[in-house]
């Protein structure tokens, strides 16, 4: 059987981690390389890096940084932000990245999903979907949640799955940052509708929220940022707790 994965997510801007971090044993808490290595040692099962300034700025410091992180890390490494072509994917994979995450660029040009899957295999492609529930319908949003699209979450998830996505990373914009728990109902429906692994994101605030999402929906992984960055939840403690609920973790 496969363990449920716990994934910290680092938002990177100008080569630094944003959304402050306060690991006491790090000399420079904003240094993504030090943070990545620390998470790897603390029991994270995978690491996601999102280049949040990718679209509005030049690439600058990002790729050399990615190379340094990939070098340090002994767990799978996913990178997202501003990826619009198979050339870009190729360049990231050559730097030691294991998977890429695409979001807005897939909505703008769904063929990109098939192109990446065909060229590099589905195993390296995560399609990220941000959605918000508006009058009972989960509407897909792009450009960091700023733009509302005509797409509906479940049909879009099915389309990218058919096009060759290897995993889905679903963030509920209604739950993100609230620390009130994951979007359980939407995640349960999503995992019924598609047969590829799903990473749940948005709303993690307590250890109970993680056990709830694993027990009440068939998701494969849970992603969070601030609860880990601020050490509100230690990954090792979280895993002990999940084990006590008979959830298989590493």
């Amino acid at each position, binding site marked *: *059987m*496969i*363990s*449920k*994965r716990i994934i910290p997510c680092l938002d990177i801007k100008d080569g630094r981690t944003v959304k402050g971090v306060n690991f006491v044993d790090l000399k420079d808490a904003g240094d993504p390389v030090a943070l990545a290595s620390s998470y*790897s040692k603390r029991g994270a*099962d995978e690491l996601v890096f999102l280049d949040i300034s990718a679209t509005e700025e030049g690439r600058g410091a990002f790729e050399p940084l990615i190379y340094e992180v*990939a*070098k*340090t*890390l*002994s*767990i*799978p*490494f996913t990178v997202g932000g501003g990826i619009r072509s198979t050339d870009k994917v190729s360049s990231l*994979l*050559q*730097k*030691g*990245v*294991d998977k890429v995450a695409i979001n807005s660029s897939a909505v703008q040009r769904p063929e990109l999903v098939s192109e990446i899957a065909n060229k*590099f*295999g*589905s*195993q*390296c492609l995560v399609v990220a979907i941000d959605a918000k529930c508006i009058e009972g319908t989960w509407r897909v949003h792009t450009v960091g949640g700023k733009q509302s699209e005509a797409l509906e979450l479940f049909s879009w998830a099915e389309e990218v799955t058919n096009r060759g996505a*290897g*995993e889905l990373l679903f963030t509920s914009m209604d739950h993100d940052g609230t620390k009130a728990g994951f979007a359980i109902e939407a995640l349960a429906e999503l995992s019924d509708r598609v*047969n*590829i*692994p799903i990473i749940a994101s948005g709303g993690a605030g307590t250890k109970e929220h993680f056990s709830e999402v694993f027990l009440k929906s068939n998701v*494969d*992984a849970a992603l969070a940022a601030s609860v880990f960055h601020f050490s509100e939840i230690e990954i090792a403690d979280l895993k002990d707790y999940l084990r006590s609920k008979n959830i298989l973790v*590493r």
Partner: protein
Amino acid sequence: MKQVAIIDYGAGNVQSVQFAFERLGIQSVVTSDSSEIQRASHVIFPGVGHAKAAKSHLIETGLIDVIKSLNQPVLGICLGMQLLCNQTEEGPTKGLQIFDTSVVKFDVDLKVPAVGWAPVKSINHPLFERLDNEQFYFVHSYYAEVSEQTIGLADYQISYSAALANKNFLGVQFHPERSGKAGEQLLTNFLKLS
């Protein structure tokens, strides 16, 4: 002196394998040069992506006979391991027939590809020294059936070969280069073989 050669045949992400050896303080070369591969003390046969495409890249390099005739320890990783089997349903594609088993697609009620960390039950082989029931990172839709050469078992509704061995040839379905401490231990064990 350990000299690791990582076979480069245009099928997959060799950088993370090279980084993993670097973390162990071991220099490795990524190469498609047959004499460089033959000279190495240890050889890695990596691979990700589609079996058919990988096999045709491999044919283009002309390395198939070189690989089959290697006498030093050789470790196939993921698709690399699958290509060392008799054949795979993906394609379908004929393998190098080092491991006497077949690779078939998961036909289970679970999600495919299988992505994530899973425990491996080892069957008394030095590659798994100090590694019984440790978890490793897997990403795959096809698996090698259990055979007499299986040295590690994993299960995903059915039991399959997480690792295979035939003389100096070894293969792992998971990615030791991305499997944390357990992966590092496995690569260290591999380097101890001669």
